[in-house]
């Protein structure tokens, strides 16, 4: 077997453009796959391309706008006390929509806690995502309805679940693929390395999609790695590629290519989407304690939504009516989410004892009964 790395062999054409866009970091990232510059200029890449109709392009734009709108609404709901916490995806819309729209229905996704855009692409009702952040459940959707697993909070764990699932797909002789999302910080977890090993050894049809948003709460990527993450794949025997995570077209193209590779039975790929966490880690976090405003400001110039908008407008793929309608749709979505969250009932206390076991457990039955009696002792006014 030989070492493959599509990324390592790339000419540096597209990266020059990134550099030209004024991003200081770009010089250090020569292999960044890009199809759309921060200015919205469509550029070629020797290995990756997408061929999308104007309608499809508008679709991607719409996805990103609505996802951002939803995300902003959730942040607001947290401030209003409706949610206990929110993990914003602000800035990562392209990475999520690009990769999410590369998927087929029969593919399976294992997200972290921040993949609201991917959830959107999978057709998960956004309000369903809010239950766990509101504190009414630990995951409010059926993973099998949209082939979108529950959010995993313990970082890195889900990469193994994805790998196992992909091993099962291969056993079934299906040509579906699996995507495991994770962050730059999570890449340090042993589980992720074990997932790389298992997927390589079993040639599992899985795509490891890392959103390198350059921060893990307060820790910059230098605390996790010494060389760009995508290079790690090669040492495990599969290709790694770094893509401009703020370029929805490149993310779509690169993910699609990795998925096709998986479908062809060629095994795993690591995609590193180079992006930026524009907001706080979560609503509990205060980034002013550890990072400079300038960094964030530099990344504003690379905004994933603005760049696609510029392209749509310049290429005449969308007119003012489209943007206006989308604005209305956004507001409707915001309103719907707001109302749905406010209407979300607290779970019944007895739910503490639900679904601990599928086949029952005597102690749970006993404790449930005791709890019910105890609760009843209050409502009877006989509480002692």
């Amino acid at each position, binding site marked *: 077997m030989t070492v493959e790395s599509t990324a390592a062999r790339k000419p540096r054409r597209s990266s020059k453009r990134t550099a030209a866009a004024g991003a200081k970091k770009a010089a250090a990232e020569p292999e960044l796959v890009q199809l759309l510059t921060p200015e919205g200029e469509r550029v070629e890449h020797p290995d990756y391309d997408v061929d999308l109709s104007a309608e499809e392009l508008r679709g991607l734009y719409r996805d990103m706008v609505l996802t951002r709108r939803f995300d902003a609404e959730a942040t607001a709901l947290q401030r209003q006390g409706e949610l206990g916490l929110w993990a914003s995806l602000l800035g990562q819309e392209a990475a999520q929509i690009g990769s999410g729209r590369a998927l087929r229905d029969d593919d399976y996704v294992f997200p972290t806690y921040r993949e609201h855009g991917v959830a959107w692409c999978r057709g998960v009702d956004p309000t369903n995502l809010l239950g766990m952040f509101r504190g009414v*459940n630990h995951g409010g959707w059926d993973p099998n309805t949209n082939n979108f697993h529950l959010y995993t909070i*313990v970082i890195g764990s889900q990469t193994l679940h994805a790998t196992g*699932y992909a*091993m099962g797909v291969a056993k*079934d002789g299906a040509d579906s693929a699996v995507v495991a999302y994770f962050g730059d910080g999570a890449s340090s977890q042993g589980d992720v390395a074990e997932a790389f090993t*298992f997927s390589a050894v079993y040639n599992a049809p899985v795509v490891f999609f890392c959103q390198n948003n350059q921060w893990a709460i307060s820790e910059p990527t230098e605390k996790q790695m010494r060389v760009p993450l995508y290079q790690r794949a090669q040492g495990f025997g599969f290709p790694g590629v770094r893509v401009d995570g703020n370029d929805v077209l490149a993310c779509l193209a690169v993910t699609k290519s990795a998925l096709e590779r998986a479908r062809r039975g060629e095994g795993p790929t690591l995609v590193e989407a180079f992006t930026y966490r524009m907001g706080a880690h979560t609503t509990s976090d205060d980034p002013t304690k550890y990072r400079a405003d300038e960094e964030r400001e530099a990344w504003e110039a690379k905004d994933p939504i603005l760049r696609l908008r510029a392209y749509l407008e310049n290429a005449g793929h969308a007119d003012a009516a489209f943007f206006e309608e989308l604005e209305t749709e956004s507001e409707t979505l915001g309103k719907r989410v707001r109302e749905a969250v406010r209407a979300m009932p607290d779970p019944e206390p007895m739910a503490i004892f639900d679904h601990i076991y*599928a086949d029952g457990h005597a102690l749970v039955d006993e404790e449930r009964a005791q709890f019910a009696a105890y609760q009843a002792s209050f409502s009877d006014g006989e509480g002692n």
Partner: protein
Amino acid sequence: MAVQKLPIAKAINESLRKAMETDPKVLIMGEDVGKLGGVFRVTDGLFKDFGEDRVIDTPLAESGIVGTAIGLALRGYRPVVEIQFDGFVFPAYDQIVTQLAKMHARALGKIKLPVVVRIPYGGGIGAVEHHSESPETLFAHVAGLKVVSPSNASDAYWMMQQAIQCDDPVIFFEPKRRYWDKGELDTEAIPGPLHAARTVRDGSDLTLVAYGPMVKVCLEAAAAAQEEGKSIEVVDLRSMSPIDFDAIQASVERTRRLVVVHEAPVFYGAGAEIAARITERCFYHLEAPVLRVGGYHAPYPPARLEEEYLPGLDRVLDAVDRSLAY
């Protein structure tokens, strides 16, 4: 012929084979479970007959083994995972406790994880460090897991059948020093419930509760006590989560004395839970406090000390005497 006499290791092997024949979704995973048949040969012959697609030699990474087993279960498979020795389960502990145990609840019941984690456990085989531990408490404390241990060939066979059929994750502790103990197995019998304790010897003066490797010691102790005119009842617990407290209570209400025996350290061990709950249930029946016999609060010692460390006949009888002296 449905009735045969065979050792525990072979009974588990037969049970795995049966499960694989019955349900194509059953997989075997672990280190050296393939060609070698496992270091204890519990999976012997399965690789040959079911192939590498169903009997999977994994990379040497326990977290990876359990983590991918979870993924396979999500895809509809029923993985039976082997951890090579008790002391090597801890790299997988996070996946077991945080993912395997909790995913069904996290998904409000929409996900089921029928994964069996087989762990040969306990001492008495003269092994080096990490090969003789009894970590069952560390799993029984965790909601979402079921924890069982057979003490004989018939239970080994049937409990494994039931564990594989169970839609919950089951941690299946195999008493490794009893692997070669033979017992009768009727493969056409109708087994009792997986989590029911079983009275393996009737008695009237005191109840001994044990599970896994210590059942044999307790039976021997009961026989020895018999010679001194003491009638000891022995209950094989079989399941450490859930615990069949009703069965223990019924016995203790008659005998009025209880000694719990296990290899695991006494401190925070299963004996504590049984003592606390049975004392609450049988407060007015007990003539003596529930006594516990088990491992010390010490790392499992080097092999040449294990005879002294392991609770043997004399230590059980000592506790029996102390209880009867109340």
